[in-house]
């Protein structure tokens, strides 16, 4: 009984809904992949958000408020300052951090295995884009060493490649 009470207390103390945050984190990029990926140029956050209501119901999430929060978190996960839900802020800041540091290097080089100049260009672009999305002080603190490492990588890469890229 004490354990149940403790779990309930922890749950009430949380400032986010576990199911919403988990679902939004898992599926926020879903429109980037077939069969969800639309043809032509598209806003992947907007398109992913459109998929959320039906997908949430398929996973047993039927509460309208929960679905609305999932939609908001996914829709605004790459748009600074948009949305009001804590889950939106958490996803946006977490997603940005995951594209900084050595993780960013791994991600961009794995996407461009045959063209390092494209990977370097993507890294420079992502460094600026994702740094700008950080709003929470905790996120800025966590991101700071990643940003420094990424800048160091870019500098050292340029040195060792004699400016060929």
């Amino acid at each position: 009984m004490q354990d149940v009470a403790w779990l309930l207390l922890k749950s009430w103390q949380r400032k986010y809904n576990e199911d919403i945050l988990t679902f939004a984190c898992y599926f926020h990029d879903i429109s980037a992949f077939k069969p969800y990926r639309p043809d032509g140029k598209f806003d992947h956050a907007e398109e992913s958000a459109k998929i959320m209501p039906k997908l949430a119901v398929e996973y047993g999430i039927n509460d309208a408020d929960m679905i609305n929060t999932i939609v908001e978190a996914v829709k605004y996960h790459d748009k600074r300052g948009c949305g009001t839900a804590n889950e939106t802020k958490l996803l946006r800041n977490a997603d940005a951090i995951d594209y900084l540091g050595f993780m960013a290097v791994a991600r961009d080089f794995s996407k461009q295995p045959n063209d390092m100049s494209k990977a370097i260009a993507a890294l420079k672009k992502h460094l600026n884009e994702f740094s700008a999305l950080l709003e929470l002080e905790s996120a800025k603190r966590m991101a700071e060493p990643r940003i420094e490492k990424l800048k160091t990588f870019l500098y050292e890469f340029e040195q060792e490649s004699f400016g060929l890229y």
Partner: protein
Amino acid sequence: MPDMERMQKHLLDLGGTYIYNHARRCLVIAKKLAEEV
């Protein structure tokens, strides 16, 4: 809680470990940031 095993399979089928592990990292980071919101 949504079916995590089903969500995992769904993501792996869509985009392999690249997207699945990104999703998992996002969730871990988001929870670490949650103290502040």
